[in-house]
Each structure stands twice: as C-alpha cells, then as structure tokens.
C-alpha cells in the first residue's frame, strides 16, 4: 500500500514536471493547442465540484463559463488593463449564481427540476446574445450578436497593458491556474465544509436533521463552481481572442457533462482526464471529418450511462486496487 502511494506521488510529480517543462521542448503552435485543453480541464473541475461532490444537478455550467468570458471581454475592452477584468470575469458569474441559486436552493427546487432550470438559463443566454444585434453595445464593446466578439484583448502583465502575455506565458498561467484549482478543491473537500457538502449529497434529509443548512452549503458550492467556470471562461476568451454565443449552447453544455460522465462522477482527476480525452476526440473528429461529432459524442454518452456508469477513473482505480 505504501509503495503504491509512493508510486502515485512520483507519477504526479513527474506529470507536473512534464507539464511545466513542456514549453522548453515543443513548438509554440502545439503549446497554443494544449492551452485550450488546460482551460477546459479547469471548467471540468468546476462541474466536478458542483455536480460530482455537492450533488447539484447543474446542466447550465456553460452559462457561467460564457458569462465569465463575456464579462471579461466587455470589461477589458473598456478598461484596457486586464487585471481587474479578470476579477470581474469571476465575480459576475459568481454573483449571478448567488441570485439564481438563492431561488433554486431556498425554493427547494431539487434534482431534475434544478437541472432543467439551469439548462434553460444557459439556453436563454444563448438566445439573448444571439438576438442582440450589432447595435447593442456596453461601453465601447459591441455585443456582436450571433457573430460574437472578435479581437478580445489578451491578458497582460498586471498593471501594464503594453506588455501582453505571449503564448508560452499564457500556457504556463493556465497550467498554474489548473494546478491551483485542483489543489484548492482537494483542500476544500477535505475541510469540514466540504465534507458536509458530500454528506448532503449522500443524504440531504439526514444532514439537515443533524443541523446542517443544506440550502446554504449548496448555494456556496454552486457559487464557487460558478466562479471557477467564470475564470476558465476568461482564460478561454483571452486565449482565442474571440468569444461567441456558442459558449452558451446546449452542445457545449452537453460536452461538459460528458467529460464528467466519462471521467467519473465524484472524482477530480477523472474530470480532468475526461475533459482532455473528449476535447482531443472532438478536435480530431473536426479535423479528419471521419464522423459527425454529435453522433460520436451521443453514442459515447449513451454507452457510458448504460454500461460504464462509474466512468473511467473509478473503473481503472478499482482495477489497479485488485
């Protein structure tokens, strides 16, 4: 058992060294491609927390992702320096989560009703942005409607808009954020608060009878998840220097859910693995045009729910433990 734990640590350190040492060895183009995987992994972690750990069936995580991206874009276009807009990109989805979450959790909306409402929220954003034509502006930022907003300014060294991050630095920053979010969530789930959240997931009534306020805990988890999703939205917008309503679309929402389902519900590492795997698969399908992406993702989704309901990480972990 000790040897195995040691091996896991060695593997983790090796993976980290590889991830951070990568810019020394590979071409910039590859690094740029890799950055989006890192950003998606952060988004996956946010839903892994909300759905996997806190048991909140949130089908609208993409709403927070898109909201973060749009909030950052609008703020940075108006302000120039990207430091404060990053915080705005985290705060706007978090505040929105507090408001909707208040209605949902304090209204005792549960399970499937919650999933439906959150899904509808992201769909409404999609429709709203889609139908907001070129004439809608916030400050000097055009909302662009269906076409999205091209030319989103990149992140810059704090306080110095003249010095944007280059591709290597953008990759490194995303990687640091991913590691910090991962470790932070691990820590959060080990605290008393995190364990109460898991207890509520397992049996809400029992946790409440023991005196915990399930509504408050869920609202807090929902909000933290929204903030993290917003941060990944910020990174995504700055990475591609583009943002569009597809960030809110039902297909993107479905993908986030598929990442978690494939990786393993209730795990953090599995969510990251699921995001990377599926993201790679969709990119590959998009390039080679071997099959329609929706057909493949839909089939994977159905097969995992029916045949591999635990996802790959727990399945492999059980296999290793044998």
């Amino acid at each position, binding site marked *: 058992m000790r040897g195995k734990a040691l091996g896991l640590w060695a593997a983790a350190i090796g993976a980290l060294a590889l991830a951070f040492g990568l810019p020394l060895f590979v071409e910039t183009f590859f690094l740029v491609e890799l950055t989006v995987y890192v950003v998606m992994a952060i988004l996956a972690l946010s839903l892994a927390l909300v759905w996997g750990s806190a048991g909140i069936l949130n089908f609208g995580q993409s709403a927070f992702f898109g909201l973060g991206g749009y909030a950052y874009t609008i703020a940075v276009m108006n302000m120039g320096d990207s430091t404060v807009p990053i915080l705005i990109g985290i705060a706007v989805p978090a505040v929105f989560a507090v408001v909707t979450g208040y209605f949902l959790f304090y209204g005792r909306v549960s399970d499937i009703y919650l999933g439906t409402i959150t899904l509808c929220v992201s769909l409404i954003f999609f429709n709203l942005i889609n139908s907001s034509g070129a004439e809608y502006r916030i400050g000097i930022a055009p909302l662009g409607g269906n076409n999205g907003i091209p030319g989103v300014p990149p992140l810059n060294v704090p306080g110095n808009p003249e010095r944007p991050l280059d591709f290597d630095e953008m990759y490194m920053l995303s990687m640091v954020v991913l590691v910090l979010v991962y470790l932070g969530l691990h820590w959060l789930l080990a605290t008393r608060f995190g364990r109460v959240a898991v207890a509520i997931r397992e049996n809400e009534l029992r946790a409440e009878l023991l005196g915990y306020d399930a509504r408050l805990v869920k609202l807090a988890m929902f909000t933290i998840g929204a903030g993290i999703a917003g941060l990944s939205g910020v990174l995504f917008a700055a990475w591609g220097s583009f943002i569009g309503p597809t960030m809110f679309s039902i297909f993107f929402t479905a993908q986030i859910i598929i990442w978690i389902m494939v990786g393993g519900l209730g795990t953090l590492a599995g969510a990251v693995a699921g995001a990377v795997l599926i993201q790679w698969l969709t990119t590959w399908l998009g390039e080679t045009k071997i099959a329609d992406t929706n057909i493949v993702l839909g089939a994977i*989704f*159905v097969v995992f729910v029916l045949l591999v309901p635990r996802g790959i990480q727990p399945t492999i972990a059980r296999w290793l433990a044998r």
Partner: protein
Amino acid sequence: MDFAAIVVIQVLYAIASLALISLGLAIIFGMMRVINFAHGEFLMLGGYAVLLPVEAGVNLWLAMLVIAPVTVGLFGIVVERIIIRPLYGRIVETVLATWGLSLLMIGLASEIIGYYQAGAAPPLGTVQIGFYREGAYTFFVIGITAVIFVAVYLFLRRTRFGLIALGTMQNADMAAALGVNVNRVYAATFGLGAALSGLAGAIMAPIAGVVPIIGITYIAKAFITVIGGGTVFLAGTAAASVLFGTITQVVTFLSTSFGEVALLVVAVVLLHLLPEGITGRFLRRGL
C-alpha cells in the same frame, strides 16, 4: 377592434403551440417519471416524417395525421426497450442517456438529411379579419390541440388500456400483482407519448420548418411547461401553457426578443413559490 381580435388569436395560438409541443413530454414524465431529453428530436423526427413523404408526393394531411405519429411512436417503443427500460427509477441517468440519444439523433439527421430540406407551405390559405390577415392554419393548430387534449383525456379515463396505465402509474407493484404486464404498459405509454410528440412536430412543421437542430428551439419551452405544470400532467400542462403562453406572447408584442426571457423569469419565480408546479397546489385531483 380588429387588432384586439388578432392579439387574442395570437395569444391563443401561443398557448396552443406550447401545449402541443409539451404534451408528449408531459405524458411520459407524468405517467412514468421519465424525462425524455430527446423530446425535441422526437418533434424533429415528426417534422421530417411529414416533409419527406410530402416531397415524395404523399397527401399532406395523411402524412401529418397518420404517418408522423405512427413513425415516431414505433421509434419510441424501440427507444424504450433499448435505453429507457434498463434505467427505470433512476431519473437522472435516464435524462443523461436520452440526452446522448438527442445528440445522436441530431448528428444522424444532419448527416443523412442535412440542412437543406425543403419545407411545406402552411395549407388552408388565409382569413381576412378587418384590415388584418391571419393564416387559417393558425386556427387549425388551436382547434386540433384542443381536440388532442380531450382525446387523450377520454382515452386515459374511458378505455381499458387507459385505466390500466393510470393504475400502473399509481402503483406499479399492485398492478403487477393483479396480472398486468407492467413493462408492456410502460412501453405502450412511452410509445403513446412519442407518437403525440411526432404528431406535434408534424403539425408545427409547416409553420416552423424542420432542420436537424429544430428540437433545441422547442425543448426549453416544453420542459418549463411540463415542470411548471406539475404532477397532474394533463391539467398541469394546460394550465402552465395558458400562463406561459400568455406571458410570452404579451411580452413579445412589447419587445420581440425578450419573450423567452420573460418565460424563464416567470418559471423560476413560479417554481420558487410552487416547487411542485401549479398542480402541486391547485387542481390536485385532476388528470
């Protein structure tokens, strides 16, 4: 005066179309506690089951009222057997599996049929109301929705199968103990819901057109209507359609792009006040 008539007709149409696209989902959810996430794609399939035969020369009414519901109903029975039945009682897993089915169907439709399917013009011509013209098909949609609701009510209340299905819904174990083949009842119920979805998609097809992703425009409205309605699914869906349809249409008259936003806001507030939907509080003894 004429304008008022047009407004009333538009509101009635909004209510009817909402009720129509929600009914199949409501029956499946209300009777089986299964949320069919591929509902929008069942509507899409119903639409294609009209447009493709019409293109091949089949009579529009025959395609709409017979071919579409039968096709989608049979498809529903197959789906129930493969995807729904292994997951009974696990509501979240059912949602996820049918979501996968929804993606699969969208992918297949865009691969096989593509985005350039010709539409069918709404039949029946127009009606003159003072200065305004209104498609006669609008009246047809309002009328047939009412007919379908009454027919479903009578079918469930007055026929042998309807009573067995309602009994199974109330207590599946007891029904099984009395010799009812519960699986067959569920399959038939799912097939009925699917057939009604197909019929709804077919009726909407001449107005809304059909593309592989048409389901997405229906699904949010249908979900909100069914969940806003609550467990008494027929009365609930009708009541929620009246409420949401009126609000959406009135807001749409005031500002074109905010109708759906108003719908969502009303739905969230409604669920905050009545977490079990309208029929959690009112009309509890209906169907």
